[in-house]
């Protein structure tokens, strides 16, 4: 009772009020910036970002004092059943990305290495372990889990990672094992995932001490579907010239679709963002001032270098307008069918980008290159993410040789900046832009 009261006062009354006030101040600041700094290489900032900050901060704040059951989940996990049973969800990957973007990931990574976790394992994992093992959370306090749910449709790493969490906290772990789709989805694969979902419901109910309502599950699935569809529409806005949104914006704006899909607040937020983007399209407001070259990004962002990379590119009138990573959260919207919840969840979560073959990922890239009129592709060879990175060499070669589009591989890490050489990366980006220019000149001559 006392805990609940504390939560209401801290999160719902004080926190909410402070965040709302902060949102208004942010909005005012962002509005002012719509009409100033004409010499800036970037377009005006998105005003909706203020709302997203409020939405995500409130989610983290609620987590600190929540009285709901807490589940830690992987980013590609089927969360609809958990949401329908009113769990508060926490995404260690999202938190690690946040730490990376705020440039506080390195110390957490080093903390986990002190506990013998190798330098060569995923940096997201080490950010998470660093926090847990040293009880140190520089960005936001994270709630302890009552249950963890891991789904290996994004990598096998999450399987090893969550086993360690289960071992540390001695809590139930649910593993949704999604067979890798080498060619096409087979009925026995869908059946396998569906049966696991069905079985997991019992564990989720037991921990929650309540029963799942089918009506509520359908509602959540419907909300998820709407959020994912809106997210896809937002990404599609980048087809316009100039693109009103950059891939860097989408990396930030994808917070709600990862953490809060299935919630009404996400739909409200994405509707607002979409309408801002429509306004920008109508008024030809681009993410950068003078968009000449449009790029596709493959793999997770280099979180600690978002600003540096976008600035280097924008200086040369180049914008990354699409990314396989952000697209992965929208492309499956048409497969969601609330009338067959478990079948639909199984089918959708089996087919996420990282659970499909290297050839299938290339097809996605080809589609994006075509639809978004892409001039060049940057493939982030990410030491932390083997399923995303292994295959990129052949994908790059195909893009260069068959699609005749410049593409290059940049080696980095999603959250560990220790081996990253900023100057070298900048020089490589500049050389790549030079290539784009040459190609454009040749095209003009022809």
């Amino acid at each position: 009772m006392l805990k609940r009261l504390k939560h209401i006062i801290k999160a719902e009354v004080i926190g909410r009020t402070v965040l709302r006030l902060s949102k208004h101040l942010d909005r005012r600041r962002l509005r002012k910036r719509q009409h100033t700094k004409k010499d800036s290489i970037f377009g005006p900032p998105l005003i909706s970002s203020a709302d997203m900050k409020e939405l995500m901060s409130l989610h983290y704040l609620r987590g600190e004092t929540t009285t709901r059951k807490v589940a830690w989940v992987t980013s590609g996990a089927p969360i609809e059943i958990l949401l329908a049973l009113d769990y508060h969800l926490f995404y260690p990957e999202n938190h690690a990305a946040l730490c990376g973007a705020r440039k506080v990931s390195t110390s957490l990574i080093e903390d986990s290495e002190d506990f013998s976790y190798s330098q060569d394992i995923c940096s997201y994992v080490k950010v998470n372990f660093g926090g847990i093992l040293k009880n140190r959370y520089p960005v936001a306090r994270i709630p302890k889990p009552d249950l963890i749910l891991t789904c290996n449709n994004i990598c096998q790493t999450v399987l090893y990672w969550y086993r360690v969490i289960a071992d540390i906290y001695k809590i139930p772990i649910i593993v949704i094992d999604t067979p890798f789709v080498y060619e096409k989805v087979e009925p026995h694969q869908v059946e396998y995932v569906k049966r696991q979902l069905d079985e997991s419901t019992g564990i989720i109910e037991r921990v929650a001490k309540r029963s799942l309502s089918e009506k509520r599950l359908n509602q959540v699935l419907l909300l998820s579907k709407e959020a994912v569809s809106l997210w896809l529409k937002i990404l599609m806005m980048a087809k316009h010239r100039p693109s009103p949104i950059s891939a860097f914006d989408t990396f930030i704006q994808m917070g709600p679709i990862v953490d809060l899909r299935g919630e009404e607040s996400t739909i409200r937020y994405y509707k607002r963002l979409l309408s801002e983007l429509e306004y920008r399209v109508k008024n030809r407001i681009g993410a950068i001032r003078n968009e000449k070259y449009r790029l596709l990004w493959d793999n997770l962002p280099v979180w600690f270098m978002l600003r540096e990379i976008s600035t280097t590119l924008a200086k040369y009138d180049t914008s990354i307008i699409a990314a396989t990573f952000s697209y992965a959260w929208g492309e499956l919207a048409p497969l969601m069918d609330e009338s067959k919840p478990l079948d639909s969840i199984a089918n959708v979560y089996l087919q996420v980008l990282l659970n499909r073959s290297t050839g299938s990922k290339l097809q996605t890239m080809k589609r994006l290159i075509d639809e978004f009129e892409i001039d060049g592709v940057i493939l982030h060879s990410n030491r932390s993410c083997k399923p995303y990175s292994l295959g990129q060499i052949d994908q790059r070669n195909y893009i260069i040789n068959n699609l005749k589009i410049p593409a290059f591989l940049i080696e980095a890490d999603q959250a560990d900046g220790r081996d990253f050489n900023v100057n070298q990366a900048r020089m490589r980006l500049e050389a790549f832009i030079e290539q784009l220019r040459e190609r454009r000149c040749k095209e003009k001559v022809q």
Partner: protein
Amino acid sequence: MNLPKRMDIVRRLREENKRIALVFPVYYPQALLRSFDIQPIEIWNADDVDLSLSDSHIQSYTCSIARILLSFVLDERYRDYYDMIFIPHTCDTFQQVGSLLTDFIKIGKPLINFYLPKRKDKISIDFCNKELIRIIGLLEAFTGKKFDPDRLKIEIEKEMRLNSVMLGLFEKREYLELSDSDFYRLIFGRTYIPVEEYTEIVEKIIEDSRLVEKKDKKRIFISGITPEPLSLLDIIDQNNACVSFDDLAVSERRIFEIDNLPEDPLTSQSLLMLNTLPDAIKGSPIELRAERILKKAERFKTRGGIFYIMKFCEVEYFDYPQIRNYLIEHGIKTFLVEYELKKDISRQNINRIQAFIEGL
């Protein structure tokens, strides 16, 4: 110890017109392949390969097994040694290599990717059975033979017999008249020698060996994927220690625990893969793996172990800190050595291993 060499077996099978499947580690339906008269030859390492072949397809932050295996497949000199490739889903890296060989690198041989479930329950056994049915369809098309459930039963019986012989070998290893490096040469034999022949070899070695207890030696265990380079074992031996048991993917982790086989041969084949000892590859709880090591350590009076982990092998990296803590709590010392295949153990690591053994 007279063990046929891998190439001798390959040549012999070729002369006998037998089909050969080149198989990636670790868990795969061996009996099923043999029921189609296909001899699986596993490949965990290769001496004469040019790693630059794989460098054109996968990044350098990939484990040396994957790089060697892909280079071997890409090397045209070895193409005549096998008829098909079989890649079980072992980890992210093998998954991607399997996918690359399906979508981008066509080498003109049939390739089967097999998804090994990462759970161990009724649901995953049912899935595994269906995955086997899918594979049967591919094997029927490849060989032109019909699947014969009775033949599969016979092949499964052979696996069962080998499993019990191997259990005996591991039980008696401390007393066998075999050096540790010879012991692991014998273990590697399992990866390429036909099962009947291999079973007989192991039985004969157990029979012929004069049982001598290595009382004076310090006992240690090793954990990891493979114990290569085998010079590691010589270092252990030179420092008056011996390996009393292991937690290696190529060795003891392949032992399965099945009392009674079900009537359905497909379910039996699934159980042979899923009911092996705890292993991170299959998502077994860390606690089970740690408990198994502790029990073995107590039984074989072993006071320390070397975690011999291949660089970039996430599967092995993850469990180490938890298992180490668990073992330390129970008085077992552990030590981690990182290595890469095709590279000698560094002087620094040799010194560290010596110091560790001295400290036991």
